[in-house]
């Protein structure tokens, strides 16, 4: 079986001989790994099963403001802190709950198509998909600032619905472009969780976010593509909702948050899980030997009946010792 076929079997909840795995790195950790291994292509040896890229408006560094990146939505991201990959919103683009302030984003169709083509050219035998980062709630707060976005969900509901409709409409155009290519799936990034419970809570998520995610999932599924969703934090409250609107695979699955045995038992035959190896606690704090044991135990819980992609819960941050990364990857290859 090719890697692609193995992932598809896993997503269809069929147990495979090998457990598919994946890993990715923050820019700084990748550099650490290159320095440690003295090999620019150190990861080639471990080649995971997934091949994908995300569209999120191509943030580009401003010529007159170091470490500040502006995206095609008009949002400027300040990356002068420890986080060099995303950053924080520098100033809200929409300063009041007034839909006329919505800046129509630039849809860089040429670049999106080029990236789709490149991705497909380089996929090898992997499961290949494409994604939209900051796909709904995150796009909302990147326009408004987090606090105002949440406040308006209560005080200016109509405005939030209008703005989310515009975000959704834009994303559907991007999905239509993706759908013209033979990808295996479409991935949506949108953080809804906190360490405990959801940021906005399930009722407001159902009111504002769910209907639009349902539309985007349906559009992605039109061509038989798998749908994968990323959210950091604790979103167990809405697993049933996500299954209902057609989600195939949920990514991050932080073990410090979820009881893996419980979620596997309750949802594992209907929702595939991608992640489970903690970047927040274990990869940073454990020894290589302890990590191997953790991975072994995790696989034993999650492997049964397929529906599992073994991976760190996030892009590996720069505080993870390279020895741990190598130990993790070698352990991943065993299953």
């Amino acid at each position: 079986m090719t890697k692609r076929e193995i992932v598809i079997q896993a997503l269809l909840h069929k147990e495979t001989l090998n457990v598919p795995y994946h890993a990715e790195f923050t820019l700084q950790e990748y550099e650490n790994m290159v320095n440690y291994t003295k090999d620019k292509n150190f990861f080639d040896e471990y080649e995971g099963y997934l091949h994908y890229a995300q569209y999120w408006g191509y943030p580009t560094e401003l010529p007159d403001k170091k470490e500040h990146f502006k995206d095609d939505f008009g949002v400027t991201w300040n990356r002068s802190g420890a986080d060099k990959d995303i950053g924080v919103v520098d100033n809200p683009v929409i300063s009041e709950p007034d839909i006329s302030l919505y800046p129509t984003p630039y849809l860089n169709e040429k670049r999106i198509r080029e990236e789709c083509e490149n991705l497909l050219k380089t996929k090898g035998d992997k499961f290949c998909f494409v994604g939209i980062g900051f796909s709904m709630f995150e796009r909302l707060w990147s326009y408004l600032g987090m606090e105002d976005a949440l406040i308006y969900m209560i005080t200016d509901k109509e405005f939030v619905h209008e703005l989310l409709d515009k975000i959704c409409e834009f994303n559907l155009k991007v999905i239509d472009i993706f759908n013209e290519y033979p990808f295996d799936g479409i991935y949506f990034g949108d953080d809804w969780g906190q360490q405990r419970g959801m940021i906005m809570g399930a009722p407001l998520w159902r009111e504002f976010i769910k209907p639009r995610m349902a539309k985007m999932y349906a559009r992605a599924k039109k061509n038989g593509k798998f749908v994968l969703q990323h959210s950091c934090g604790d979103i167990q409250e809405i697993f049933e909702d996500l299954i209902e609107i057609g989600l195939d695979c949920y990514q991050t699955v932080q073990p410090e948050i979820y009881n893996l045995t419980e979620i596997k038992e309750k949802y594992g035959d209907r929702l595939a899980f991608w992640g489970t190896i903690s970047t927040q606690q274990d990869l940073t704090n454990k020894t290589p030997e302890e990590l191997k044991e953790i991975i072994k135990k995790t696989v034993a819980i999650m492997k049964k009946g397929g529906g599992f992609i073994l991976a760190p819960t996030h892009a590996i941050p720069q505080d993870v010792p390279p020895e741990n990364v190598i130990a993790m990857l070698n352990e991943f290859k065993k299953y």
Partner: protein
Amino acid sequence: MQILNDISENLQKGKAKVVKELVQTALNEGIAVKEILGSLLDGMGVIGEKFKNNEVYVPEVLVAARAMNMGTQILKPYLAENGVEAVGRVCIGTVKGDLHDIGKNLVKMMLEGKGLEVIDLGTDVAPEAFVKAAIENDCTIICCSALLTTTMGVMEEVVKAFNEAGIREKVKIMIGGAPITQEFCDKIGADAYTPDAATAADKAVEFCKR
């Protein structure tokens, strides 16, 4: 008193304008400033409890805190002359290298909701800036926030900086944020870790009473 109940109820619903009007009316009616403030804190206390129990979420806390701010803005000029003092004084900030502020802001709102005075140092706050602010403002507590595993280590430097400045015994150091655990708190020698903003406020009040 009905109007005080109304202030608390409307605050819980986040009706900022109504709260503002009611506080003004209560003042005009000659109700003691301390009692009016008490009704605002009461409303925020209910929201805090509900937040801890997952009955309300961040948006509800934000609108309630905004309503409370509207009310306290009106009361502010009268607090000192009526002998109403803050429960304690806290300096709060997100540690150096970390620019995230939603968690820190939530804790600030909950602290204010318990009647504490909060000096907000913002984000990307260096250990020495925490020390300086704590001395200048004569704070009982400092609260340090971090979202990233790559910045939480700065909290240990904050503890060291207070030791070196010779004021560690005078100031309680509270820490919080997604990657923080009790184990980490014990390891770096901070005084308290709390898993959510409402619990942080309860802990801060406890420290101020000692």
